[in-house]
């Protein structure tokens, strides 16, 4: 379980996240929704501390991953990031072969090698439904795959290092509708084993797959709760307006 407590993020002079408090439950899909520029991606990038690579960023507050504060404690950052996978908006395969894309994470984390590595690559490519499409050309450059296949490859790559959480930053928005559906279905399947936190711009997508919803507006969390409640009985006026399409 990830708990965010009074998190504030400043980037240079801008106050990006304002006193954010949320609880992201385990083995569920949490959708973070809200208009552009409301801090969804910043929140997501704080969860695996990628935000630190941004220039002029100041963080205060707590982010507790399974009870451990990842911002303050001397938590090993690489181990943290291994446990919290990220699937970005645009698929970005590494400049290597299909096989090595999935194997890279296992190699740098010393998870396995040799036959075991092969088995793990196959297993993860199967779990994203890519194995049958690529088994004949595992050593071809990953960049030659179609964009939908690339995104599934990125997902397989994230899964191969055995994370507990998966962050997805609009992971389907750059894909064609059919690939988007495939990836979306995958997330639904994966929630049995992983806790998935996804940022989405598509309300309908959130409606389809979310178990838990966080609505953000201008850096603040306006409303959070289980999907049923937020979508059908929103408590806050802003949430109602956003859900009815008054602004986006």
């Amino acid at each position, binding site marked *: 379980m990830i708990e965010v407590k009074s998190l504030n993020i400043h980037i240079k002079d801008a106050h990006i996240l304002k006193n954010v408090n949320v609880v992201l439950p385990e083995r569920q899909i949490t959708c973070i929704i809200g208009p552009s520029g409301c801090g969804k991606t910043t929140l997501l990038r704080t969860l*695996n501390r*990628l935000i630190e*690579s941004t*220039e002029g960023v100041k963080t205060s507050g707590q982010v507790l991953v399974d009870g451990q504060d990842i911002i303050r404690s001397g938590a090993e950052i*690489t*181990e943290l*990031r*291994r446990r*919290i*996978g*990220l699937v*970005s908006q*645009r698929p*970005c*395969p*590494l*400049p*290597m*072969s299909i096989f090595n894309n999935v194997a*890279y*994470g296992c190699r*740098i*984390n010393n998870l396995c090698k040799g036959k075991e590595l092969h088995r793990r690559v196959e297993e993860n490519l199967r779990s994203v439904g890519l194995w049958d499409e690529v088994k004949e050309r595992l050593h071809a*450059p*990953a*960049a030659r795959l179609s964009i939908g296949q690339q995104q599934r490859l*990125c997902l397989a*790559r*994230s899964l191969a*290092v055995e994370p507990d959480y998966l*962050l997805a930053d609009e992971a389907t928005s750059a894909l064609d509708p059919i690939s988007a559906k495939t990836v979306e279905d995958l997330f639904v399947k994966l929630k049995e084993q992983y806790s998935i936190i996804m940022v989405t711009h598509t309300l309908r997508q959130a409606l389809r797959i979310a178990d838990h919803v966080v609505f953000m507006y201008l850096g603040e969390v306006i409303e959070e709760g289980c999907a049923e409640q937020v979508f059908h009985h929103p408590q806050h006026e802003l949430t109602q*307006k956003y859900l009815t399409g*008054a602004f986006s």
Partner: protein
Amino acid sequence: MKKTFPKQPRRGNTHEVQLTPHKRSAVWGDHSKPKARCGAKRIKEALAQTLMWLSMAVVVGMVVSVIWTIFSHGWKAMSWEMVSSLPGGGFYIGKEGGFLNAIMGSVYIVGGSTVLGLLISVPVVFYLNIYLKPGSKLAYVARMAFDVLFGVPSIVYGAFAFTIMIFFGLRTSLLGGIIVITLLIIPIFIRTMDEATREFPRDILDATYSLGATRWETLKVVLRQIAPGIATATLLSVGRAIGDAAAVMFTAGYTDSIPTSLSQPAATLPLAVFFQLSSPIPEVQDRAYAAALVLTVIVLLLSITGRLISNKFSKNKV
């Protein structure tokens, strides 16, 4: 809250819109009218095209005439003996021998300085782009410094190295040549690779970090992506290194033998060209062109191999 939209014009009837003749020509590319305007346009187009062709012809003509001059003069003096033997006793008055000393000296100096240059500049580029945050002041100052160094003439490097060698009481040597040429090409290496690395997609970095990579472990990924940039940088550097006469004159010196250790002086092809071309004897002058021909062929071969290697490494580029 209900939103109202301003009425949109109906779509799909653009062909019914009344256009003035002037507008029609702009839309449909109707060149027949109005005539006066069109004539002026054609003249401008023809003029521009002629100028471009002329510029092209000048450049191509220059390249062809350079190659022709080197070839026509050099071919007379070219022989297997020229590229396979050391200068004999009367070589510089047109008698027996060759300039293998200069070929090997150039190969040693260029090989050594390229390896040394790569070993120094790859970490610098990596540090500038991956370790320093974007917008870092140190990176800004460093890049400016490399720009300045890029523009320093090679004779200045030569003079600088010469001063230092005198200070330490060193004599001209292969090592001195390698070091000064390394200094000369490092800015080229860094600048060219830096350009390639700055285009490196941030997303890929984030992806490797998200898998638990340290910055050091991303090196493998970055190197694969910028392999074509490294190849280009190497080609540019080698081209500059092999052709430079001014920097090696004071540092590597000149000798009629092939150096067998780093502390011995070394001859180079550009200096071979220089010394022989300043001779009053026509046969010796032709040998200068033969040396220039060898120099050109080496650069050409290196370019082709460099491209092939780069293509092989860049097949994985995203």
